[in-house]
């Protein structure tokens, strides 16, 4: 009887969680309605900061969605058993986050009702248009991949599907990086380093999200993650965090090497008010140094520490994206190199931006979509990692 009541309360908890997710999604829908009705005037975005908070959420979700597949790839492509057991969960998370991210991106459009035009009038030279193909292709590929894992008769194709997903996700993150890398006129972007930087960032963010979700599922099912497995995964997270910090540092170093980028680097790293603060405190300290300490410091690195580290990595990701996307636009576009510029259209001035509540509602709506898809799927299908007794490979 005691068992049954416990089960019942778990059941209730599930619906409460679902209700919370639904509420957040509803908030997002409300924001979409308001932005559709009134226009983007009610958002904080303007003609200088054309991409705002929704894009921070969307790009995080999309980058993490491709990164989380790494867990699956290590299993399928490189044949590591403990990762293979986690491939279904990783694929599910990827689909969930991709849906959330794309929803935010689409619903932030000025004319979301015309989204079909993106399919009927295709511009071959546009990175955005390439990404339309990359995202939808990823979606279908991951579904096929999941099928090969969950349907016994399809198992034979698992390796091939795994390889396809592996390649596709690299191309996809490259595409996401290229959106910015091709903006040659803007000081903040237009760097060939951006695609690889986004790939390494995706490793760290994806694994962090995966870890958080996995930890919650284990608690929910009253299971305990094998300490050996935890050890390996936390070390991997540590390596990815170091790697991403290295890429971000390289990006800024190369920028400082070019004389015409000095102003921008000083702005982002020292003088820009909220941007350097978010960069140093939010991204570097909270998003990198602290997680690394939690992972590697002697005496730390236990289950709770790794969970905290993973959450901090996600937090750092948002800080970095805010600095990258909004800080990058806030710094004045250099139309006349070597001149001091002023005009009625904010030329030569730092653009100001205050995100509005609707942008946050929309962003959290995207997170909610990912959350609902994950929660429901984990509940109705078997995504629980099934570990054999751990053998080091």
């Amino acid at each position, binding site marked *: 009887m005691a068992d049954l009541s416990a089960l019942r309360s778990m059941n209730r908890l599930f619906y409460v969680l679902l209700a919370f997710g639904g509420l957040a999604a509803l908030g997002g829908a409300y924001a979409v309605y308001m932005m559709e009705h009134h226009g983007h005037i009610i958002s904080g975005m303007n003609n200088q900061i054309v991409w705002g908070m929704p894009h921070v959420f969307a790009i995080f979700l999309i980058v993490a969605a491709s990164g989380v597949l790494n867990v699956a790839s290590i299993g399928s492509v490189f044949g590591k058993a403990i990762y293979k057991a986690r491939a279904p969960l990783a694929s599910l998370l990827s689909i969930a986050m991709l849906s959330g991210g794309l929803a935010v991106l689409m619903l932030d459009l000025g*004319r979301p009702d015309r989204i079909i035009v993106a399919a009927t009038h295709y511009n071959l030279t546009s990175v955005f248009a390439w990404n339309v193909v990359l995202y939808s292709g990823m979606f279908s590929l991951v579904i096929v991949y999941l099928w090969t894992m969950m349907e016994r008769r399809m198992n034979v194709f698992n390796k091939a599907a795994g390889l396809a997903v592996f390649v596709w996700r690299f191309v996809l993150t490259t595409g996401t990086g290229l959106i910015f890398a091709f903006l040659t*006129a803007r000081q903040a972007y237009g760097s060939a380093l951006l695609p690889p930087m986004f790939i390494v960032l995706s490793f760290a963010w994806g694994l962090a999200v995966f870890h958080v979700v996995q930890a919650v599922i284990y608690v929910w099912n009253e299971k305990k993650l094998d300490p050996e497995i935890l050890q390996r995964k936390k070390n991997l997270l540590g390596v990815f965090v170091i790697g991403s910090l290295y890429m971000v540092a390289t990006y800024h170093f190369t920028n400082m090497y070019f004389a015409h980028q000095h102003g921008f680097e000083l702005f982002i790293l020292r003088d820009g008010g909220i941007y350097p603060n978010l960069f140093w405190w939010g991204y570097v300290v909270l998003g990198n140094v602290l997680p690394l300490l939690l992972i590697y410091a002697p005496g730390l690195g236990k289950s709770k520490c790794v969970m905290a580290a993973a959450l901090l990595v996600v937090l750092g990701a948002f800080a970095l994206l805010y600095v990258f996307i909004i800080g990058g636009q806030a710094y004045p576009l250099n139309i006349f190199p070597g001149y001091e510029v*002023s005009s009625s259209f904010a030329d030569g001035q730092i653009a100001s931006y205050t995100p509005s509540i609707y942008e946050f509602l929309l962003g959290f709506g995207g997170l909610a979509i990912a959350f609902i898809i994950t929660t429901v799927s984990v509940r109705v299908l078997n995504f629980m990692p099934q570990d054999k007794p751990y053998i080091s490979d």
Partner: protein
Amino acid sequence: MSDTNTQRREFLKTSLGAAAVAIAPGMLLYSTANGKTEGASSQVRWGMLIDTTQCKPDCNDCVTACNTENGLSGGKSATDSQWIRKIEIKDVSNGRVTSLPMMCQHCEHPPCVDVCPTQASFKRADGIVLVDRHLCIGCRYCMMACPYKARSFVHETLTDQNPDVPRGKGTVEACSLCVHRIDKGQIPACAEACQNKAILFGNLNDTNSEIYNKVRSVASKQIRADLQLNTGVRYQGL
């Protein structure tokens, strides 16, 4: 049998041809009578030469004329559209101040057209870069890509637009070089409004045009020439 068939075919062909010859001029007449224009020609490249030495710092006539012509509010807030704006630039090395109007530069290789996912941003045969608002989904990627910040996004519902200049919420817009005036044989509103004749408009490909000859005789610059976009708007005296 085959012979009759061939004959029949020949007859049909000839009569069809004759019918076409008979109808074509009529169609042509119909078209002209109904105000149908030829359309943009690729022989033409519209452009401007802006003489910054003639541009007065406190004069805003081109901006006002643009706003009136295109039905812009003229507001200066961060969410208001500005198709043309006056920029004051000061040479850091010697302190020389110049004033100039800045708008869409109508590039030969426009970055906005490259990045637009739906082909809404496009370049007309005569070199005018436009936004097809029927296709624009409002992603603002072109605004990110434009090196001149020439484009604005319509942030709120508009009413009572100029019948010749449709514009609406949720789409991106920019200087159209007053394409509706050009198609009627007029010059852009800013060029017409400039009292100092600082804005010279014309066909950069026409060897008889004033702009063609002036671009060849005086020193002019393209802004951000390093990007090699070959802009249609050139500046003199920078």
